[in-house]
């Protein structure tokens, strides 16, 4: 059942479930963060509406900087602004930022420990028809490896809004991962979000879970659907939303491993070096546990609809269910 304590969206299993792009929540959160703090500034690389910065740009034109198609400049200018007390959010497609400008992020933001927020929109395979060049599947790896940077991957637009508002207050560098497609609204305004905290969205109605599913980003909805179907097959699982990939909630992960036979990680990212790898690092050192990884397996993407691609690359509801059963079949 849905965790009753988290005030999740009760319409989650309805046919008329509301769907909103995760990036839209960022746009609303940025506007709110800008209203709360005049030091918040926004920079964009010719993708203002695409990355939903237009709400902020319209309200605060003096604090919005159009950089042009120049992602290296995007983050280095942001670093300079942070040096003078600003809290810059800089957005582009994840493929280009942090895809193209990684060294600038490393040296001028992470190494300098400047509170720049790098916002990578259109991450994951679900960008769809644009094809493999635009499907960023390596950004969690690129960002979580850097010291000082927090990495946040919200599950829906409401969580993205909360994450944006929270990141404006940390005084630290951060990477915020967003998706393009309309995504089911799982949470409500009352659902808790805290950087560094994992949240259990689905749990068995009674008793302990046999398998723990840890998911990040837009696939969270599919993980919950998988859990609901598994429950009907008398397989008890927990679904944990790990939107805060770094800092990671090691305690929650270890506790989940102790409760269950094993863990399934689910992410729209290469299996190598992604969220699942971060979970594996925690468990290998603290509580060695069988893990099945759902993600892209050492391949680039291609054109297609988001649903076609998620299924083709083995990240859909049935793949998650199979992975859970595989854990149960393991010794």
């Amino acid at each position: 059942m849905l965790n009753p304590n988290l005030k999740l969206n009760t319409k989650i299993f309805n046919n008329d479930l509301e769907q909103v792009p995760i990036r839209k929540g960022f746009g609303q959160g940025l506007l709110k963060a800008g209203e709360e703090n005049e030091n918040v500034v926004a920079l964009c690389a010719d993708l203002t509406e695409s990355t939903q910065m237009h709400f902020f740009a319209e309200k605060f034109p003096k604090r919005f900087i159009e950089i042009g198609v120049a992602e290296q400049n995007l983050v280095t200018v942001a670093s300079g602004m942070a040096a003078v007390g600003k809290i810059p959010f800089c957005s582009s497609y994840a493929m280009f930022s942090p895809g193209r400008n990684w060294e600038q992020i490393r040296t001028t933001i992470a190494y300098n420990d400047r509170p720049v927020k790098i916002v990578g929109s259109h991450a994951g395979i679900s960008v769809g028809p644009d094809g493999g060049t635009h499907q960023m599947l390596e950004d969690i790896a690129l960002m979580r490896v850097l010291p000082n940077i927090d990495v946040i991957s919200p599950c829906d637009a409401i969580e993205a809004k909360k994450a944006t508002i929270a990141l404006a207050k940390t005084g630290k560098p951060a990477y915020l991962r967003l998706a393009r497609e309309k995504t089911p609204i799982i949470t409500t305004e009352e659902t808790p979000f805290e950087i560094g905290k994992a949240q259990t969205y689905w749990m068995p109605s009674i008793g302990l879970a046999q398998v723990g599913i840890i998911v990040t980003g837009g696939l969270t909805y599919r993980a919950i659907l998988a859990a609901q179907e598994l429950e009907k097959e008398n397989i008890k699982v927990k679904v944990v939303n790990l939107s805060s990939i770094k800092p990671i909630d090691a305690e929650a992960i270890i506790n989940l491993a102790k409760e269950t036979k094993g863990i399934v990680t689910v992410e729209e990212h290469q299996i190598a070096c992604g969220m699942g790898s971060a979970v594996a690092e925690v468990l290998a050192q603290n509580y060695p546990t069988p893990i099945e990884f759902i993600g892209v397996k050492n391949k680039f993407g291609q054109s297609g609809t988001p649903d076609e691609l998620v299924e083709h690359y083995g990240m859909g509801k049935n793949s998650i269910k199979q992975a859970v059963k595989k854990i149960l079949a393991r010794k």
Partner: protein
Amino acid sequence: MLTEEKILFLEKKANDIRKSIIEMLVEAGSGHTAGPLGMADIFTLFYFHILKHDPQNPTWPERDHFVLSNGHICPVFYATMAHAGYFPIEELKTLRKFGTRLQGHPHREYLPFIETSSGPLGAGLSQAVGMALAEKINLEVEPPLGGSTSKFVYCFMSDGELDEGNSWEGIMLAGKIKLNNLIAIVDRNNIQIDGFTENIMPLEPLADKWRAFNWHVIEVAGHNFQALNEAIEEAQAIYEKPTVIIAHTIPGKGVPEFEKDYHWHGKPPNKEEAKMALERLRTLDGKIKSEHQ
């Protein structure tokens, strides 16, 4: 206009800084020689005349912002800061050693009062653009036409790093938003690691390129204090554009054996060479010529 007395003071200070550069490089056993010696005069002019700063209060909010983009010439940056009173001159001998604040390339985690870390080329100007832009946003009212900002952002950069695309992205943006509080100084010494800039990747016509990107351009002799000072005063008075000062310098300046030779870009002098270099510098000083003889 600098007085004769001031120029003599600056010349002596620059010579002291060059001596420190040689001493710290030979002690470190690695590092860059040509660029630091070539930029010693400009650093001296800035830290002892131009910059609004307070070595006793390095984060003074009213200070000018200084960005060193080509971090590899940090021996001159460190030596100048030490001579200006930011930290003891003795500390220069810790350059590049374990536990030092004076990292091989500047790192603000260790030396928090520098504005940025640098080393990877081509990123400093964009950070300076960001600082100048943030300062402009902070100004509630734009200064009147013909007036100027009270605070400047200065970025020192090399000619070699103009090979980097990021440099030109920053140049383009500064021109677009007319950052008159930004002044870039290009160390036009014509060398980079692999050879002469015009052989590796031609930059000329360099002044025309900056002009085409909507910058005000001043070319100046990089070892002439009077001319440099006038160039900076002109740059400060330009209202409608950012300014670049292309300073024609001699790499290795002060030690004839090192001058204009790109092989000295990225290596330190050995003990013999350092001894010779210090003698050269002392000879130019004209005071303690006989110490090593």
